[in-house]
């Protein structure tokens, strides 16, 4: 997983105990998740715990953390990747007061890793969020059918032919609005057999793919 310089810097600032002690760190990471998952994100950073921090640093850290979370979900990074990534960051923060910093940083990042990886709910929610940024054709969700027997119509008598009326329930989720729609068409028995045969071919190919 690659991270840009600004994100790395933000993460470093986040690991700096001068800016964030454990409480503030936890608060901010929780806020970052909440900011992504809930729609009311206006007052994300108005938490009382974060009042003393320089707003510029706070905003920078918030962006870095949010980007980091999104990026790791996007790349489907596992625990080891996340931790190795964070270790890279930590290397740069080694300074004179390395011991103290190291401890703090380690603890903080462990907490972050914990948040990212063991709170599966967060991850799946974020995955769902990201996978919803996508386009796909309308989705068939169900089908209903009606068997009719046509006897006569205005122009021909004694037609006496069975026919089917098929109705596909189609769901379309474009632009965030899920809309249901019915797709109706009629077909004769032979045509229905053809349709079912082709669908069965598809099912067979799925089965084949499953066996590999």
């Amino acid at each position: 997983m690659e991270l840009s310089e600004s994100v790395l810097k933000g993460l470093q600032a986040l690991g700096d105990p001068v800016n964030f002690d454990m409480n503030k760190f936890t608060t901010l990471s929780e806020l970052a998740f909440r900011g992504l998952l809930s729609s009311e994100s206006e007052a994300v950073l108005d938490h009382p715990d974060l009042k003393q921090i320089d707003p510029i640093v706070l905003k920078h850290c918030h962006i870095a953390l949010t980007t980091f979370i999104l990026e790791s979900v996007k790349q489907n990074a596992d625990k080891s990747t996340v931790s190795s990534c964070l270790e890279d960051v930590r290397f740069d923060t080694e300074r004179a007061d390395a011991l103290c910093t190291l401890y703090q940083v380690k603890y903080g990042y462990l907490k972050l890793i914990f948040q990212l990886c063991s709170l599966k709910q967060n991850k799946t929610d974020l995955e769902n969020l990201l996978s919803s940024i996508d386009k796909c054709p309308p989705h068939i969700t169900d089908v209903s059918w009606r068997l009719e027997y046509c006897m006569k119509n205005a122009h021909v008598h004694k037609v006496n032919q069975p026919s089917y009326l098929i109705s596909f329930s189609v769901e379309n989720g474009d632009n965030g609005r899920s809309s249901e729609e019915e797709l109706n068409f009629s077909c004769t028995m032979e045509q229905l057999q053809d349709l079912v045969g082709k669908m069965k071919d598809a099912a067979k190919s799925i089965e084949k793919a499953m066996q590999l």
Partner: protein
Amino acid sequence: MEEVDKILIHSLRQTGTDIGEDVESVKQFSSELIVEAVVRCLRVIDPALGNGLSPSLPPGMSARFRLGMSLAQACQDLGYKGEIGYQTFLYSNEPEIRSLLMFLVEKLPRESAETSDQPAGKSVLLQKAIAAQIKAQLALPWLPPSCRLPLHYKTQTPGPSYSFHAQPLSVPYSLKGSSKKQPKEVREYYRDYLLPVTAQPSQPISVPASLLENHASELSAAQEWENEWNSQGLLTRLTPEEYRSRKRARLQKRIEEQLRSTAQPRPDSHSATRSTSDLAEFLNSFGGTSAGGNVLTKGTRFTHTEKFTFTQEPEKAAQQMAAAANSLPSSHQSEEDLKAQQQEEISGLQQQLQQLSVQIEEVGGEMRQLTVSISQVSDELKQREVRNTEKEDSVRVKKQTIDLLPDAENNLVKLQSLVESSAKRVVHLASQWEKHRGPLIDEHRRLKELCSNKEMESSRMLSEIKDLHDKIRQSADEAKKKEGLYKQLITEYETLPKDVSRSAYTMRILEIVGNIKKQKEEITKILSDTKELQKEINGLTGKLDRTFAVTDELVFKDAKKDESVRKSYKYLAALHENCTQLIQTIEDTGTIMREIRDLEEQIETEYGKKTVSNLEKILEDYKAIRQENSALAAKIREG
């Protein structure tokens, strides 16, 4: 043998041979099974060799024979030393088949070990993942849309979907680095007014898209910079900041030149004068700010272009407004009047416009003429001035000569001495110059050499640095690859069944080894027993011989004297002879017994070869071939 057969059957099953559950030993292998097993093994060992062979026995007798021959040939090609021919496959006997299969199976593992060293291909992994996903989806029962649980939402319903809509974000840091240079106002904005980044986009769903996009663009910019720096920047031997500023200056110069060339004041267009003046002003400011090299140049440029394009607008707008205001009060007049008035006004205005444009053209023409004449006049002026100065010079020279004329003699001498002294001074100066020049040139040469040395050194270092960069990148790539591999192998290892019978196998092997050791001990014990027995026997025979010799001698001596003793001597000889005969017979019986045992073993092995059934089979096959041949002959005759 059971153990061996189990291992054989197990490894044959792994090669894809379809061995029934009830088959437990090689004895139960039919011809078909043998052929299939051998062909499968061959295919694994050497695909080129095995793919030409069919794993099933063909129905025709002659085809079977050919298949057997080619199989035998293939096995021999692989290096099988034992006796092998078509009969091995068609009329099998257990030990031969076992040794053949053992040979093939021994050949197997090395090949498959090599392939198993390689991690499973990406495509295989992908296919596995797809299969797993489909399986998982099908494991969930289908539910009508109205009663779906959240866990159906990912698969059976598409859910809402959004387009990837990224918006520019305002971030509280500049990508170009140092935040110290930020003006106070910008910092104030960042501190007090900038919204948190999640609140910036207009829709919450755009937040992730915008953030990801922002990050990607930052990354790609960094990457591009790195590429450029590595390919070109390093060679210029500047620090990154210097390189950047130089590049910026170069670009600005280029832009400036381009703008200047397009904005050459053209005398024919009247309206252009204003814009060119704007442009010139802009260019000036451009040149001014370029020295500072600030990001804000962008801003000034834009404000200027804005000014440039929009300055004419307000005037026009004001005129239009005024016209509208004029027409407003007369709105109570009748429509027709209004129309007529407007028509009149329009025509009047048009006339005026035409007049004005004609005037403008005229004026333009005049101006053109005037500018041409002005330039002509100024040219002339310059020429005249040049001529004037020339003339003034000549006048001055002439005046001096005239002044000197009256005292010509004296002046001449004076002049000559002056000339001489000057010449002397020149020579003196030249010698002095030579004196200084020598060391200076040497110094220069030395410095030049030093310089070139340093240059060489630095270029060497540069190339080293470049190599190092490459190496670093390569190592990083490799490390990444290795890490991926490691992860993949770990997952693979985790998915592998944990209850491999490896330990059971080793246990078995150890047991067998122990058994063999025990057997060996027993054998050595028996051997030593036998040896002891032999020794005893030898000792006894020796003793017997000696006793007999002594007795014989004693009795022979006595026999000369006594008739009865002679008789007893005879008996003794007979006894001895009989006894040796007896021993001989016993020994003979032993050898015969051994032979019998050998023969019995041979009979057993012959039984193992299924000779009778094989003979029957051969007979049948012979008949079949005869039939085939006759059928073919009949066909030929018919044909």
